[in-house]
């Protein structure tokens, strides 16, 4: 595994070639679509509204990085996998509006996440197409797939972390019956992995979690925490600063 570090990596998922990048994004070349999850815009502002001082640069930094990945991949469509906005409207929405105008020609789609508090109209006004999920071929893009199909979950994580309670998913199940969806790409979890080494060293990194039928993206936003996933996950692509590291399940 000497060639295990680089800034991007290609994975094969449900017969499609997908590019994972150390910039915490996924690029789908065949569809010219850039997929980004959990930006949590406006979070810093939300904290400030409640008297907790968080520097304005936090939000600016997220927007700057968004612009950078756009110019890097030059996509035709930007797909946000939910939690683009952290909370209620605040001045950071205005920043986003400006940023949106700057990228006016680019088509942007938002899949609603649990942090999106408002009706679709509010987001459509910002120039975003709003969906509950998006199906491309037999892959479904959504915010959170709360019942991953074939793999083992962490030790009872759902019972003790009520943060990830199922949202309204009856509709999704109905549609699942209708179309032959075989793979799910989602965000929501903010996956992180702990690596241990000799000399009692430990490092925690954000990562992509890759299962046969599911791919979970890391959170794009910087002012967000991590949720540690189990190292039983078949394939983990960890992000160390600006490089990717492939960690396979130890067998």
């Amino acid at each position, binding site marked *: 595994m000497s060639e295990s570090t680089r800034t991007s990596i290609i994975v094969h998922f449900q017969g499609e070639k997908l590019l994972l990048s150390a910039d915490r994004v996924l690029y789908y070349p065949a569809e010219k679509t850039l997929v980004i999850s959990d930006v949590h815009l406006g979070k810093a502002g939300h904290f400030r509204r409640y*008297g907790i001082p968080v520097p304005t640069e936090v939000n600016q930094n997220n927007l700057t990085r968004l612009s950078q990945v756009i110019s890097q991949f030059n996509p035709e469509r930007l797909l946000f996998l939910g939690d683009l906005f*952290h909370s209620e409207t605040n001045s950071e929405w205005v920043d986003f509006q400006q940023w949106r105008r700057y990228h006016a020609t680019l088509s942007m789609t938002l899949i609603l996440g649990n942090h999106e508090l408002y009706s679709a109209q509010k987001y459509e006004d910002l120039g975003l197409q709003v969906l509950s999920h998006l199906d491309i071929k037999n892959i479904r893009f959504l915010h959170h797939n709360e019942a991953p199909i074939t793999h083992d979950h962490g030790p*009872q994580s759902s019972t003790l972390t009520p943060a990830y309670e199922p949202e309204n998913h009856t509709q999704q199940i109905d549609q699942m019956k209708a179309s032959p969806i075989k793979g799910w790409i989602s965000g929501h979890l903010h996956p992180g992995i702990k690596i241990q080494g000799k000399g009692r060293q430990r490092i925690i*990194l954000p990562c992509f979690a890759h299962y046969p039928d599911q791919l979970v993206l890391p959170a794009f936003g910087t002012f967000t925490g991590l949720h540690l996933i189990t190292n039983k996950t078949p394939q983990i692509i960890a992000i160390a600063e600006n490089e990717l590291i492939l960690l396979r399940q130890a067998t």
Partner: protein
Amino acid sequence: MSTAKQPIKPSKSGLNQVHNWFTNNHWEIFTFQQECWLAVQDCKEGILHAPTGSGKTFALWMPHIIRWLDAPKQSQKGLQLIWITPLRALAKDMERQFRQSLAAFDLDIQVGRRTGDVSASIRKKQEQSMPQVLITTPESLHVLMAQKNHERYFKRLHSVVVDEWHELMGSKRGTQTELFLARARALKPEVKTWGISATLGNMEEASEVLMGTEERHQNSVTIKANIQKNIRVESILPKSVEFFPWHGHLGVHLIDELIPILQRSRSTLVFTNTRGQAERWFQELLERVPEWAGQIALHHGSLDRKVRNWVEESLHDERLKIVVCTSSLDLGVDFSPVETVIQVGSPKGVARFIQRAGRSGHQPGATSTIHFLPTHALELLEADALREAVRHDKVEPRPPILSPTDVLLQYLMTRAVGSGFTAEPTLKELRSTFAYRHLSEQDFHQIIQFLCTGGPSLQAYPEFAKLEIDEKGRYFVGNHTIARRHRMNIGTISSDANMQIKYLSGGRIGTIEEWFIGQLKEGDRFWFSGRRLELIRVEQMTAYVRRASSGSAKVPSWLGGRMSLSSNMSEMLKESMLKAVTYYDYEQSRQSPNLIRPEQSPKSSVEIDYLKPILAVQQSWSMLPGPNQLLIEKSFSREGCHLFFYPFEGRNVHEGLSTLVAHRIAKLVPITFTIAMNDYGFELLSDQDIPIQQALEQDLFSTEHLLTDIYASLNNSELAKRRFREIAQIAGLVFQGFPGQGRSTRHLQMSSSLFFEVFQSYEPNHLLLQQALDEVLFFQFDEIRLRQVLNRIQTGDIAYREPKRFTPYAFPIMVDRLREKMSSEKLIDRIKKMQAQLIKHV
């Protein structure tokens, strides 16, 4: 005390009546008590220097009885006396004592308690009509000051008594006490302050901090209770030293030696250092001697108040034979003394040890015996060190905390949430405290600005609205959510979220740190409150449990059990160590007639004698460092390269020194360390060979560039980040949510470490980051202390060994799991190495 209820004829003066009451009860009036009564009558203020259990409470309570007896009834309205105690648990006992004596004199004076565990309805009643006497804690007073118009409560305030001042001083709660005193004095300049303190190494300073200003201090009095206490220290030893583990912190291997002592004694307190340790001991004792069920109890700070009250009352009524406890029973009013006191593991400080010993044999002049139960072999030396420290009365000083930014931010918010404040008089008030005596106008305004704008510049952060200013220059909080949040947050000077533990049927058992419950699955079992419990489910900060009949169960470990030896203790320990080595050398020389041996046998003690076989192992595998010798050992294991240093300077100094040493080695080669330490020494562990020889050649312990290196190693270590946790909590950045409120507050939760990182990248000069650095510099990197230690190492010699196995000195450090990090490698290189290792194992 049951006879105390006889009413007394109101014909004589108050003082006479109190005298009679004492005589009727066959109590002696001590000189210091009388001195206090007269001093208070003379409108003096000051500090009473008296140990627990000496009658200190009556010394400062009786003068108020006298005053009320002498004064006309109408002058007795309103809050007159505030009695501040550091522990909620003490408040109740205080209340009972006060009520008893008031009843004896037939005085119509109300006594109230106002602490975190008093119900909201009682607090509401108090606010409508304050009792004349209020027993409370520093936090509760700050909550009170966060009320609008709180000024009205203090109109008739006569005195504030700060009990157990030695316990509060040197902590941020001490600073909170200072701030309250300044407020009370500003509202009512005639208010008198009295402090009660056990012996401290800096008594003079203790008085100065309490009085606030130089002038007040000059006019105050110090009264000393001349109570001589004899303390005997006895070690509990196993049959043979071979049975002694080289590491550990529980000490249960000595249970068979302890049981006979417990059997002989009518009542015993077993002091442990952590709550987990107390749970374990309680469980082991019951398993070993089941017939003690009902006569043995557990007491620690996480247990529900009702449970603790019951234990305290039962102890008082002599219904319990054994109580296993933590520092929760350290302080305390004069509940009846016990016959025997046991100390499990190092007490870490001389003052604490003396205080615990004083729990037995309360009669003046009597000898208190304290049994010391070491948890591992080397800890035996501490018994010897403690005995010497007690003999020479080496009680440590408690330096007061100077100008903490987080407490000031919290206080200004409290004032703003309350009645609001204006800048000028507030600064004046702040400067009348010891802590903020030198607060500059510039710093003060910077702090206010921080609360108003949230950022470093005058221009406010968008939507930031914490502190606002009205046209009259009064600062206030307009946003109700912020005000409510602040009130909730005052007083939580503990940084871990606590969860309630409740039975399914509803009974409360106590609280436990969230992270412990987070490790458990439903159906897992754990020990708590001396019971085996099964986790049923977790709901909104409450863990529901039921009794589990059998099966193995985990013992919770609470964080925060890692105290450092006080500097006095480490000094004494070092001496005991040298004594042991000298004695060992002497014994060896006697066995080989060729060696010249000293004329006189060096001093020894039971403990030192006992340790001989272990010292022999240390000697043969490595060496026994003598005076002015620093031993460094290097060994290898599957984990990598271990480097041990033994300066015997106490955990705090080792924290700084180890980081400095790691930093200097890491400058030579790219390398990553994890660092562990105890009171004796520290360990650097790395996955690669550590170039110690090269480092020593390049003056590893030089005092040159010390300050530069300290700052550099600070930035590379996590020490400041850890300090920042508490600061973020006090300053109100980290918020645990309202009780019973789930989701909506979660949008506002963020770990302190993420704040730390954000501030580091965008506002490196942030006020609170600065404070975190200052605190590390004060506690771990005390430059003067470090310089002294480095000088001592440089003038002495360094002994370097490469033992094949971990030595008795190394073992207790090596097994420590809690580690610091320090790295000069690139992140990506570290991960690559880790991966390479991972693959080798597969």
